[in-house]
């Protein structure tokens, strides 16, 4: 049994009268892929927005276990969740920097360490060797990830010019550049064809196994969910209606009624 990475306790998020998340508790393990599934509007993206500091949860708590320390994620505001707590995310509608090159996208993701190395730009302005070394390292890290998703040959093209499937993959490896402990992916397989979907599975498996990064996955595509999830949390109208392994989820009558039944 691996250790607990994330625990969400009694999380509630209200928008005026609408309760988008209702008293939700679940946990995610280190080195596991945990999927959050549920019909449209169930509150999945809202969970991510609370976790990553884009929304302030109405009540409840979220803890991240990082190097034997427990961090209260509620204490971090938006960019600090990525910078200080090591939680990275992607977006349901891809958010790349479209007019910047693929490589530049990867470099921006390594901003904080490069900024420190550039001595708040002073060392960078004089081309200090220590900065140039760091910059070269960052470029190599970018190349490492681009090699994995077969995009190295397009590194100098604008990210916005890539085909859709490549943009999805680029957004994921860009998030990996911040060396996260927890990677939150919002519907990464949406709009991918079968081949791209299979490549995505491989990439996620690689991140989980080789990088020892916990993955929290929102997904609609059942083949993706069932193929790679270690653990599944099912939401409906902001409430958790089931939690278990992929196999158990498939068989659960509540889930079939609320979700799978209506889909197929």
């Amino acid at each position, binding site marked *: 049994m691996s250790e607990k990475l994330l625990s969400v306790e009694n999380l509630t998020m209200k928008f005026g009268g609408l309760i988008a998340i209702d008293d939700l508790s679940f946990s995610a393990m280190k080195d596991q892929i945990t999927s959050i599934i549920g019909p449209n509007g169930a509150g999945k993206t809202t969970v991510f927005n609370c976790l990553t500091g*884009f929304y302030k949860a109405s009540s409840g708590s979220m803890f991240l276990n990082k190097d034997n320390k427990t961090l209260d994620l509620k204490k971090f505001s938006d*960019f600090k969740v990525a910078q200080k707590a090591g939680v990275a995310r992607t977006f349901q509608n891809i958010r790349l920097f*479209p007019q*910047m090159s693929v490589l*530049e996208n990867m*470099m*921006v993701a390594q*901003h904080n360490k490069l*900024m420190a190395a550039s001595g708040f730009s002073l060392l960078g302005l004089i081309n200090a060797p220590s900065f140039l070394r760091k910059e070269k390292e960052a470029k190599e890290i970018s190349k490492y990830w681009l090699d994995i998703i077969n995009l190295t040959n397009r590194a*100098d093209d604008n990210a916005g010019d890539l085909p859709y499937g490549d943009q999805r993959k680029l957004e994921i490896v860009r998030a990996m550049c911040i060396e996260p402990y927890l990677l939150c992916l919002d519907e990464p397989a949406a709009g991918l064809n079968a081949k791209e979907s299979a490549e995505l599975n491989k990439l996620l498996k690689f991140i989980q196994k080789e990088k020892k990064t916990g993955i929290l996955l929102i997904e609609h595509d059942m083949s993706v969910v069932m193929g790679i999830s270690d653990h599944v949390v099912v939401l409906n109208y902001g409430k958790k209606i089931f939690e278990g392994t992929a196999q158990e989820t498939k068989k659960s009558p509540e889930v079939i009624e609320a979700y799978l039944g209506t889909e197929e």
Partner: protein
Amino acid sequence: MDKNFLQSSLKDSLFTGLIALALFGPIVGLRTVAVNEALVVQPKWLVVALIVAFCAIGRFFINIYSFKKEQRRGEPSSLGKAISNFLDTKGSQIALGAIIFSVIFPFMPFADRYWMDIAIMMMTYIMLGWGLNIVIGLAGLLDLGYVAFYAVGAYSYALFAIHFGWSFWICLPLAGLFAGMFGILLGFPVLRLRGDYLAIVTLAFGEMIRILLLNWYTLTKGPDGLTGIPRPSFFGLPFKRYPDEGVETFHTFFGLEYSPMQRIIFLYYLILVLALITNFFTIKIRRLPVGRAWEALREDEIACKSLGVNPRNTKLTAFAVGAMFGGFAGSFFATRQAFISPESFTFIESAIIVAIVVLGGMGSQTGVVLSTIFLIGLIEVFRDFESYRMVAFGGAMVLIMIFRPKGILAKRKPTITMVKEK
């Protein structure tokens, strides 16, 4: 040319004529005149008809010759493409050529007082354009109050120089520092604003600074302005025909004949050096992490946050660095004029600088130079037709937007590349 296209062009120009009629009909066509102490409407339909015909026919020709079908979606025209291809491939040679030309310019046979003054003015606008390019072109923050930092630089330079008697090279960095601080001061309240809202608040900030300068009489002498700002000296050697007793001047030191052009040429080189510093600094910082973060922020602020980039610090540095260069340019302005008043820092200055940046192609350093030469040159050519200057200015902007909708130079070069260049 196929019939459909001709037809749609014709339709479009008729529509333009209608708009012109609706606009000019009441404004130009109906004129009130006083007859026997009563106001009478005097219609001027012939003038209106001429204007409407001009608009419609003009639009028709623009349609036919510029909006060729394949270009309707904002594709650059073939001439523009050829020019920007040329600039892209020969970029560094052109830049080097331009720098060499600027260096030898004062010794050209035609470079008399008039030409030197224009060159200095253009150089000042180029420097301001490059400074504002950091804020608008790179960080994507539409700042309509940039002239405020120019003013802060000019006034702080003047006050330091007048009251403490410090030399140019001490006052210049101080003025830049002051302007940079004002940049941060403006940055804080507008951190959450974007686009139009940001533009309005920065515009108001520019006016606030001007009104402050106008009313803080004890410090700024209000509308009277500050006089007696020390002229620059050549490393301690003043440019004076009749120096004070025992003081060496520029021309005696170098054993030259005195000429007022010496000071002008010195001022020219001063602004050239300041502008080039701005340029090389921007080119360099764009390739540093902070520069990339500026551009990333322009592209997508939410994505930046998700990657741990601090948007507050990033925006504030953009405002501060941009303002600092505005302040440097302001110092130069103060020492060149020897007299400054709030009148020199009106909104129209901000508007011209923004136009230079936007028309040049957001973020393009060469574009700033080209659009400055074009716009300021145009204003200069129309100097004798005072009332038509702004019409020409506006017309020029419309033309650029028609032929190069993304600015004169729209192509952006990546700040770091995987494949070694060339």
